[in-house]
């Protein structure tokens, strides 16, 4: 049942958007769709208003950092869910680290508001058109984006963690 739905969905998406959908794969019975940044809002909007698919729920929105992929270092992952058809799938958009900008999803789903702020705070991805894009979880004067792979877990000003005692 889930496989049939995935098949129908991926065929409809390919038919509608053609080459702007960069790839559709199925892993662990879930579709992973990679699209270009330029069509992300029309794409999700089409899915939301589609009579059959009716993707009415944004489950989650997050970022991932792949430092070794040139020109595609940052990725925004949208987890979407259609209650009527019970399909879940993921949409990925890859952004270059030199220009990490992408249009905001808050016009379609109000839930994206804080999720985009969190992704901005962790990765530095700017969401164009967001009503209030600022740091949400850390201190206001945080000047770096902590979840990028080049930053360590422990902040550099720690003096009490002596590696000698931790066997490092």
């Amino acid at each position, binding site marked *: 049942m889930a496989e049939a739905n995935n098949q129908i969905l991926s065929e409809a998406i390919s038919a509608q958007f053609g080459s702007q959908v960069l790839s559709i794969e199925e892993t662990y019975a879930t579709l992973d769709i990679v699209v270009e940044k330029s069509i992300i809002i029309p794409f999700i909007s089409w899915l939301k208003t589609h009579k059959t698919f009716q993707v009415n729920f944004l489950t989650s929105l997050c970022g991932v950092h792949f430092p070794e992929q040139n020109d595609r270092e940052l990725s925004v992952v949208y987890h979407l869910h259609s209650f009527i058809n019970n399909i879940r799938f993921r949409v990925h958009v890859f952004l270059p680290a030199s220009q990490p900008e992408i249009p905001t999803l808050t016009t379609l789903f109000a839930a994206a508001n804080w999720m985009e702020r969190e992704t901005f705070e962790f990765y530095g991805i700017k969401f164009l058109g967001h009503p209030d894009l600022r740091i949400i*979880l*850390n*201190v206001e004067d945080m000047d770096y984006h*902590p979840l990028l792979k080049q*930053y*360590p*877990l*422990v*902040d550099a000003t*720690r003096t*009490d*963690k002596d590696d000698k005692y931790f066997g490092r």
Partner: protein
Amino acid sequence: MGLNTSKLPNGPEMYVGEGYGLTQIEKVIGMARANSIWPLPFATSCCGIEFMATMASTYDLGRFGAERLSFSPRQADLLMVMGTIAKKMGPILKQVYTQMAEPKWVIAVGACASSGGIFDTYSVLQGIDKVIPVDVYVPGCPPPPEAILDGILKIQELIKNEPLRRRESAEYNDLLQSYQID
């Protein structure tokens, strides 16, 4: 005529006679303070739930006199910091501490308040003694209610034996200066 001594239950040694008892005022004040603590539960995370269990009927904190919780620092004398303090919360914790009137005590409940706990990350304060002076540390993650009660008992011992003039002494003022609290 010799003076008899007697010890009040949970109280100081006294020379007693017919209708009077003689002891140091310091000890009576200590006894009164120790058995009527007004705690400020600064509960931030999981240790706060264990504190709720301590306040509930099975482990009743009220039997030690600490029944009346005060969420206003102006009316509290024991600051119980329970849970992780992030760097964003540090200045607020310090402000709450400075708003309390002397004499005040601080108990750090749980591993996160004592030393940052399992969260050795960029956003967590590694122990509240980086911003305020602490009197008793209760380890555990979270400490069971018995351990929190043990911490309260140790605070009671500290309170009972505290010299009257400690808060005006140079040593105490130096301690506060080292935390930039004045």
